[in-house]
């Protein structure tokens, strides 16, 4: 359990948040630039001396009235937006920097594991100046891990990277949270990254918490869509499911979630029984009042409408509930009227495309 009650006042900016984050898994601090998410993270790390309030991680108090533990005495790992490696040390000695400052009895992540998890074996003797942006960020993550943190803080670790480098580093982050039981707080302004990585979500705006809860539930909330789509990400919902089978002949996987079954094309064969997260974009979901046969759309899920909201000219965003799993659909205003969509109405959600997130 991570508790943080943080207050910071600066000219033109006030941060006032009270966070209760789960003690495992990934929690994301999400919001537009300038909303205070990075300041929040820095305050958790003790890098903001002017922060008032209380910070406690798994029962250990890092900050409170009259208590101030300096950054170097907080068992944390911090990954900055720019890798911030030590330019005078090679990759190995960068990673060893934190490791060597942890008493052997408290070491939880051996050097070999950090190196293996981030795929750095071939880079160990290189200087940071000779690495690509993605490689540097991987070294920075390994360096933070090797310090055996009780809490891993990541400040937009992918924001400074271009799309191919992002795609290079993201799988390592996902692997990390599957392999290690270290709670992470991940700062991001990309709804995409948040959907892929975070189970818990805190939405910030202008230094205050707008909403907090499970990623799945928050991402499907109509009143929060403007926050999620502000960066150009499309409205989408996240579905937790378990793989049932994968048909190698046509690369089609089938996964079960409480609302039914979802089929999706996947070149890599997910193993039956594997828990996966699937992303369903609102624009790929159409609605029908009766079950449709003779269609190319493979997925039809029984659900009921929970809310509607105008979404730009002529469009309506519809929130659905499929046996407890929230979904989003985008339909035209005309269709919404023709079908008489209203909260409580049972519908079939036809899902054209489902993307595997991890």
């Amino acid at each position: 359990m991570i508790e943080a009650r943080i207050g910071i006042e600066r000219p033109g900016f006030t941060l006032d948040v009270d966070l209760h984050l789960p003690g495992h898994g990934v929690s994301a601090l999400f919001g537009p630039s300038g909303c205070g998410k990075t300041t929040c993270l820095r305050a958790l790390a003790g890098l903001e001396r002017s922060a008032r309030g209380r910070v406690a991680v798994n029962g250990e108090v890092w900050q409170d009235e009259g208590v101030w533990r300096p950054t170097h005495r907080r068992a944390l790992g911090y990954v900055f937006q720019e890798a911030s490696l030590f330019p005078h040390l090679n990759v190995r000695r960068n990673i060893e920097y934190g490791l060597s400052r942890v008493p052997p009895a408290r070491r939880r992540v051996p050097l070999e594991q950090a190196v293996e998890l981030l795929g750095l074996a071939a880079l160990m003797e290189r200087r940071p100046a000779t690495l690509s942006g993605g490689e540097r960020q991987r070294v920075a993550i390994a360096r933070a891990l090797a310090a055996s943190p009780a809490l891993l803080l990541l400040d937009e670790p992918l924001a400074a990277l271009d799309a191919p480098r992002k795609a290079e580093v993201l799988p390592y982050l996902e692997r990390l949270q599957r392999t290690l039981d270290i709670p992470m707080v991940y700062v991001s302004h990309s709804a995409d990254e948040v959907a892929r990585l975070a189970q818990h979500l805190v939405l910030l705006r202008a230094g205050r918490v707008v909403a907090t809860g499970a990623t799945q539930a928050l991402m499907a909330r109509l009143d929060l869509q403007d926050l999620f789509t502000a960066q150009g990400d499309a409205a989408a919902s996240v579905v937790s499911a378990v793989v049932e089978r994968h048909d190698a002949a046509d690369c089609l996987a089938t996964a079960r979630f409480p609302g039914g079954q979802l089929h999706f094309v996947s070149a890599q064969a997910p193993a039956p029984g594997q828990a996966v997260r699937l992303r369903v974009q609102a624009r790929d979901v159409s609605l029908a009042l009766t079950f449709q046969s003779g269609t190319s759309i493979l997925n039809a899920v029984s659900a009921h409408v929970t809310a509607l909201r105008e979404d730009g000219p002529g469009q309506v965003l519809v929130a659905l509930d499929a046996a407890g799993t929230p979904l989003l659909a985008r339909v035209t205003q005309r269709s919404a009227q023709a079908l008489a969509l209203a909260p409580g109405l049972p519908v079939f959600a036809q899902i054209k495309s489902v993307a595997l997130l991890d």
Partner: protein
Amino acid sequence: MPSFSPEDWAAIRLTLELAATTTALLLVLCTPLAWWLARTRSRWRGPVGAVVALPLVLPPTVIGFYLLVTMGPNGPIGHLTTALGLGRLPFTFPGLVVGSLVYSLPFAVQPLQRAFESLGPRALEAAATLGAGPLDRFFTVALPLARPGFVTAAVLSFAHTVGEFGVVLMLGGNIPGVTRVVSVQIYDHVEAMEYTQAHWLAGGMVVFSFLVLMALHWLQPREPRP
């Protein structure tokens, strides 16, 4: 072929000793001062920085004069050194060292200060998140990253001390083997119309200074920092 006389050699040796001692002391003394100047938000930063820069603009005779007065029998430093049983500093080698420390102070402080300022907070913050305390961070991150600043500070302090004249004359007089450095020796040669010997020493100074500045150029890292 005319060459250096024994007196010339004594002056050269003394000059190098003075410059080496001064440089070593300056690097030790100026590191904390430069660190403080680079990082403080105190309102004393401006005044202290100005005092450090004073020797750049004051005539050496002014510096020498005040040092002579304060280190003399009736000056506060003179009283102190006498009370400590060290005797008086003017006209001694330690006196010259004190004078050189003051005279060359900005040439050590300013490169170090610039080097520390250019570090920025990020590398030190990263070190803190990796469990390094303040002193640990300073020695394992700040010092290695500021190395070019130390090279510049050392070379400039050394060269500037070698080129000292006014302060030495005011403070050390002209005692062979004790306070007569190369610049004073050249002055003596010229006064005595010994132009050949003056040429040798003066030419040596020109070559030395040129080599120092070239060394500074070659020693600076060209590898861009990421």
